[in-house]
């Protein structure tokens, strides 16, 4: 998978919870270094609501949430951006997958305050009007979804994969999607969808996006060969 930032140093929800402990109702939070730097001073935040600015799907949102609120909960309960879901709530199932600065993250295990200054993309960013993103279309065509609760997370993980590696092998796709759990058992057709999207090559939407270009640059993937566009589905 494009790395889930699980091992990224800095401020994780897990370490936060550890610090706070079981009775941590009224404990302040030290601002992550980069945020503090941006604000020119290191100071404790909370325990009450603090102003948070989030850049989600190209729009700036200002909200007030307690420092302990996750990015997922901030988006779902404060901004009504409910496409991705909370399922395991501890970074094990991928239903909450979003992209932060082009990389997938478990948004249930990312604090809203640490997402400030980053570019956040959710499943809601993919659809243009009523036109589905090629990955979404492939999920529908291949029946890569049943109850659909895990689907937005899977779609995000697949989009991230294809933005970095437009032509994954089955093994690469499996590995990239191993961070997501489906209980209905759609895996066979999710994999078909992931491979089918790339095989058919309808990735203009992916390649046209600034995020996609940046992701490919990071991943060292060059521009696509000529002639593939002819096969756009």
């Amino acid at each position, binding site marked *: 998978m494009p790395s889930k930032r699980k091992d990224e140093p800095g401020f994780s929800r897990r370490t936060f919870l550890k610090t706070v402990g*079981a*009775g941590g*109702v009224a404990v302040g939070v030290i601002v992550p270094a980069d945020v503090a730097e941006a604000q020119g001073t290191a100071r404790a935040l909370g325990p009450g609501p603090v102003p948070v600015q989030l850049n989600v799907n190209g729009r700036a949102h200002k909200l007030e949430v*307690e420092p*302990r*609120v996750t990015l997922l*909960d901030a988006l*779902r*309960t404060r901004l*009504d951006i*409910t*496409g*991705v*879901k*909370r*399922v*395991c*709530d*501890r970074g*094990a*199932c991928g*239903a909450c997958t979003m992209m932060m600065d082009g990389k997938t993250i478990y948004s249930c295990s990312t604090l809203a305050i640490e997402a400030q200054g980053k570019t956040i993309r*959710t*499943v*809601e960013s*993919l*659809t243009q009007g009523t036109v*589905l993103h090629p990955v*979404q*279309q492939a*999920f*529908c*065509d291949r*029946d890569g*979804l*049943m*109850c*659909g*609760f*895990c*689907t*937005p997370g899977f*779609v995000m993980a697949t989009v991230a994969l294809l933005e970095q590696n437009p032509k994954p092998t089955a093994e690469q796709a*499996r*590995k990239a*999607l*191993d961070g*997501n*759990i*489906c*209980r*209905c*058992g*759609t*895996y*066979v*057709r*999710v*994999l078909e969808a992931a491979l089918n999207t790339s095989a058919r090559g309808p990735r203009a939407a992916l390649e046209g996006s600034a995020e996609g270009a940046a992701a490919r640059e990071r991943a060292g993937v060059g521009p696509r060969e000529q002639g593939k566009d002819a096969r756009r589905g």
Partner: protein
Amino acid sequence: MPAVAKQQQQQPPAQTPPAQPQPPAQAAPPQFPAATTARWPAPADRAHIGKSIKRLDGPDKATGRAKYTYDIIRPGMLYARLLDSPHPSARVRSIDLSAAEKLPGVRAAIALKGPDNPATSKVMYQGEEVAAVAAISEEVAQDAIRLIKVDYEVLPHLATVEQSMRPEAPLVFEKGNTREPTLQQDGDLEAGFKAAAHIVEGLYSTQVQTHTSLETHGGICEWNGENLTAWVSTQAVHATREGTARALNIPQTNVRVITDYMGGGFGSKLGGDVQVVICARLAKLANAPVKLLLDRKEEHLVTGNRPSAFAKIRAAVDANGKLLAIDAETWGTGGAGQGSNFPVPYQVYVFSSRRQRHKDVYINAGPQRAFRAPGHPQSCFVTEIVMDELADRLRLDPLELRLRNLPPEAENAQWERYFKMGAEQIGWSKRHPTGDSVTGPIKRGMGCAANRWGGSGTNRSRAACQIHPDGGVVMQVGTQDIGTGTRTLVAIVTAETMGLPIESVRAAIGDTNYPWAPGSGGSVTAPSVTSIVRVAGDAALQQLFAKVAPALKVADPSTLVARDGRVHVASDPKTGMTWKEACKLIGTDPIDAPATWQTGLSATGTSGVQFADVEVDIETGVTRVKRIVCVQDCGMIVDKLTAESQCYGGIIMGLGFALFENRILDRNTAQMVNPNMEWYLVPGMSDIPQIDVTLVDQPTRGVIGLGEPPVISTAAAVGNAVANAIGARVRTLPLTPAAVLSALERERAGGTL
């Protein structure tokens, strides 16, 4: 669970092997007078039915637009959390809510247990609800929960079936820690064992599996005076209305339940759940809408599971491979006060005689609920492993032993044919005898198993179809789509009936304001819903024909048909008019046709087989399933695409049961040690083998449900394949590396085969 009882009644009696107990006969369905007799169109005339049709709500789900209960935010909505018992067995002496109530942002707090009422003073399992709070945010609600003070008198508990069955065990359950055994017996057991050429004896067991629905249990409750609207994650909107109204002691007519989208249930969401009742009480007290959905740990602890199964077996076969007798002492636990029954033998193969004594054992753990094919996977695993062991004793191909002991072939008993198809696909002829002789640690093996299911329609189903003067068609039916594709099936059948494209009809489901339909359990949904939708659509169409006939100067409206967007005389497609023109003749009021049940559109009884090809590393004990071959029928296929998905899904859930899933309780504390998704392991992408599904269409039969059959045989087939690979028999599930290595160890020490 009601769904279980219902299902057992729906076993096809005609195909039940004679030596085995007949299920109680189902009362003859009442015959309702029908204006018309609806039938399925002839296979050649079907525009949509039986084709691969994409699910209608795919785009809504893939874009995140679909609003699940979890996603709905009502104006002024509060968030609720529960205080769960940390103890598996305790008496609540007192609950002090005062500190929680004083926390800013808290709007309601209630005690759910207490010393005053003996019925509610005890908790019997970890996670049982003790108190609840509603507050302006989930975080505040969680803080308030921490402020509640509960004084528990901790009581003795039972964490395992072994502890409960010990004679010196403390009496934890008032009516006894185990239930009086039930006895079922048919045929002359003694004669069977006397005539035996070989006898196999062993202890077989399967684990507790939790449903692990991705959307947890719960809902949103909003009162308007005495009327309650509840958005609930449920697989039975009508049963949820009944259960909630009963628990709140209010009229059912005051309750409306809505389930537009729901994130999985698998049998655990079939009725009025306690979470919704608590949510409604909080909403009433706070005078505001309240959302209460469980967290992941609570979901594992309290919302049901598949009971464990233990079976001490003695089975006899004669020299010709005829199954003579099976004697089973079985037990298992469905947690606190719940049953755990499963039939032995699995009712596919014919044994001349059988006896089963079953005992329910209670432990202090969350109660079981119906779980996708209740009883069947356990029963299938035990029986199919015994079958392979008998075949090994006979030095007979296990497939051949199966073929010699099947009931006569019938529409709903096609195992012989399917076994041969599956064997061909997986290359069974290349299967080696038990124990792969290849050098090196990686051993390869194959196994197989059969399944059966009832899955017929429910005659209480209702629907109503409206045709509007502008040509619009709405089919209302109070079912719900739990991910199987029910919404799409409703649209397919409606469109087929009206001769319209699927996109131009509306399937109105997931609301108790629509006519009654059964809960999505027992694989009854597809047969119930497609049948009643066909009847309602047909009734509405007949009304339309009556309006159109005079305009077309046709004396007999029954000579008209609706096809390809036109209404015309059947024999002359060139006459007639477009659908829109026809509907203009309706006048101002839409046609509204209610429907009552008609028999003959659904059927009963599926057959299926599965084959597994596995690799086992005898140094690490790790099993990798390489391939599953599935041959399955479900009567008349309505949507091939979503039906195949049911098979994939069932097999994958069966792989979880075979290899990974296990609810583990600490034997000393009765605490679940893996109430999460990193240690309760469900299959992930890299665990999925090549899966080949062959769906056998039976286009001249009625519709039968398919949700359950594909989950039944996977673990049994994998279990047999593992033994075939390593030459040692693993008689327990899941087939963990530890279980495999210990079977190998026992084999070296004297034999497991």
